[in-house]
């Protein structure tokens, strides 16, 4: 598919978003519950490590 020059063209943008959503929904429906829970666990771990990094940065900033 040829990409239009203006990718923010409203019609193209709407269609693109709808395609991405549909593809994602199809992908999500193909996953088992165990796979989805594993994805949630990964999201949680990422969230926790970001939180730890933020806290570490705050501590460093407070020290300096």
């Amino acid at each position, binding site marked *: 598919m040829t990409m239009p020059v203006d990718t923010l063209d409203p019609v193209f943008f709407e269609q693109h978003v709808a395609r991405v959503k549909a593809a994602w929904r199809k992908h999500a*429906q193909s996953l088992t519950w*165990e796979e989805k829970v594993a994805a949630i666990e990964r999201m949680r771990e990422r969230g926790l490590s970001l939180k730890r990094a933020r806290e570490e940065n705050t501590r460093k900033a407070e020290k300096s």
Partner: protein
Amino acid sequence: MKQTLQVLLQLRAEGVLARFAVGGAIAASFYIEAVATEDLDIFAFLRPSPGGLVVLTPLYERLKELGATLQDEHVLIHGWPVQILPAYSPLVEEAVHEAREQTFEDLAVPVVTADYLCAIALQTGRPKDYLRVYSLIQAGCVNTAKLRQLIQIHELQERWNDYARRYA
């Protein structure tokens, strides 16, 4: 997660939890795509004490024996913060009774049905709950006649109207 669920099933087998069902984002992930969550919500009927009162002490004592630790309003079971919520409304009580067993690995785990998840989300009424209602309906896993019945019985019409104003 499997070990966490195993502990909950063990508590039920021992009678410490009379009945329970998985709710919240983890239950929703059975029906729709996974969304980030920090905890596992459990709706439960606790075993009443001989005097008829429901007390949390035996549950927490047994959880500690099984290696769980308390962390704010959660119990940390095998790395997962679990929020055990005694069934707090007639709707949630019904949701626990009507939960269906779903397989997680080789475990049969009671999970709140999509219809009840929608109704509970309407009752809770935060933006993220409305988004869950939208996602469940959009995914086509809600029995609309049943949801309409739940909205009427549990007087959630105003919440439904509020949701519809935002999403319909």
